[in-house]
């Protein structure tokens, strides 16, 4: 695969805006061949980090490299990194085709590629309309077309499904998975765990500018949430005693049903068998990714709703 090895490496990235610390000593690698979800509540520093990757903002300390080089030293940036940070970052009076053409020209990319990416994102019919009149969804597609122009090994999308209709959302997910399957490095930011759970293989979770987790989605779920086992037995009271004795806790859900915390399903099954108990149900329950994420970032959310409705 030609894209193997395309990497983003961030080392001790720190960025202040006045007294606010937007990104705080952040280090991570983004590896090829998978979709890496860049996750954090609003204001966690995701966009700032992406801007530093693109050389738009200068870190106060630390560094980030693309394939070993700072972004500003890339010989033809669009051929190595395609990024959609802000779909509105274009001149609204310019026709979509020319927006893409001037980007292609700046990196010596063939004109034919403009028509190609317009077709890929499904905008070929509106190429000669002014980009300012585009809907949010069309704007996102145009931004994605711009990111794909240089056929880059690294792609970065900041909240790409914002404003898209369900069909568009499905398309973006499929696109990101396809890009990663081709061996490219794909970094996608989101503040919605549910979105990431559908596309990402790996997660980088940040809160208040700090790294919270850098692990696979599977590890993330296992490590960041307590998971319980639902057990149903006609001999509920006896089961409760055994569970308690084994050092686990439980909560009663309904008649004859317990949610056991602190014991694996297998251990509960063995416990029941050795004591001759009948089990009607034994189900490991995973916390949803959303729950896991909420729990993890609870302390780093900038603004909390008070729960009161005026």
């Amino acid at each position: 695969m030609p894209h193997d090895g395309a990497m983003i490496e961030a080392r001790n990235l720190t960025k202040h805006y006045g007294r606010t610390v937007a990104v705080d000593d952040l280090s991570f690698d983004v590896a090829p061949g998978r979709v890496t979800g860049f996750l954090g509540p609003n204001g966690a520093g995701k966009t700032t980090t992406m801007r530093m990757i693109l050389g738009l903002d200068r870190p106060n300390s630390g560094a980030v490299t693309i394939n070993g080089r700072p972004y500003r030293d890339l010989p033809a940036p669009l051929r190595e990194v395609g990024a959609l940070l802000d779909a509105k970052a274009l001149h609204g009076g310019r026709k979509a085709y020319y927006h893409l053409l001037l980007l292609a020209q700046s990196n010596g990319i063939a004109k034919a590629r403009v028509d190609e990416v317009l077709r890929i994102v499904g905008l070929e019919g509106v190429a000669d309309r002014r980009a300012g009149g585009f809907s949010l969804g069309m704007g996102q597609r145009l931004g994605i077309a711009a990111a794909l122009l240089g056929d880059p090994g690294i792609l970065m999308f900041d909240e790409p499904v914002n404003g898209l209709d369900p069909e568009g959302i499905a398309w973006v997910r499929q696109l990101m998975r396809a890009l990663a399957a081709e061996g490219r490095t794909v970094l996608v930011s989101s503040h919605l765990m549910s979105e990431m759970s559908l596309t990402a293989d790996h997660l980088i979770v940040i809160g208040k500018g700090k790294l919270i987790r850098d692990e696979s989605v599977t590890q993330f779920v296992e490590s960041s949430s307590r998971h319980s086992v639902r057990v149903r037995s006609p001999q509920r009271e006896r089961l409760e005693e055994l569970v308690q004795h084994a050092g686990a806790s439980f909560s009663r859900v309904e008649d004859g049903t317990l949610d056991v915390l602190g014991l694996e399903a297998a251990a509960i099954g063995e416990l029941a068998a050795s004591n001759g108990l009948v089990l009607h149900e034994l189900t490991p329950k995973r916390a949803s990714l959303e729950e896991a994420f909420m729990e993890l970032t609870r302390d780093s959310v900038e603004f909390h709703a008070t729960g009161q409705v005026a």
Partner: protein
Amino acid sequence: MTAVIERPPQTASPVRRATFGDALRSEWTKLRTVRSTFWSLAAAAALGIGLGALISWAGASRFHRDAGLHFNWNPTDHSLRSLTIAQLAFAVLGVLIISGEYSTGMIRTSLAAVAKRSRMLSAKLTVFTLLALIAGEAIALATFFLGQALIYGKAPSASIGYPHVARAVIGAGVYLALLALLGSAIATIVRHAAAGIAVIVAILFVLPGIAYALPTSWQQPIEEYWPTNAGQQFAIVMRDAHTLGPWQGFGVMAAFVAVVLVAAFVLLERRDA
């Protein structure tokens, strides 16, 4: 929508390095594909040529009745007088080609595409200044020739072959291009259309006006060396007292624009986009 990416056959050749020429091509596309470029230049042409024709015709018509006109009559300078108004359109366009990048957010897309910031800015300014120069020369020549045609027969008129006339007419185009470039440099520093236009208008009209309120000993050197006043010397035939010569004047203005440009490049490199 199913198929997502069609992989073009991978060329094994290494990526071609992007060049200054690529940036020039890109900036030219940028410039010619927004309407403000055309409309600003059209406004400059209408103000310069149209107003110039009116001023030439009016001056020539009352030449025989107005002794004051006889005294200072210079047909070239008279016909180019409209350019003091048309210059505003050049200055404003200079501001807009930069502030437009900031107000739309395009600057981030531009700098992601051309990561070497100075390359992006020098390509943009090269393309734009060339366009402004061509437009400026065309407007200056048209204003001059139309003006002289209207003056001819009613008052003494000039020919392009007379002493200093060609230099003044060509110089007027150069002055307009320099002014447009100054507008762009200022806009790169202030990053905002309104602020940029305010600064360039202050430089052109407000600050030289304030000089009149100062004691003569201050007023004269300010009038003499004020960059835009100095630059205008390049665009006239008849020189007043306490003014620089045409080439000196051009030099002073060019040096001033160069200083502002250096500040613009330094700030663009240093600041977050």
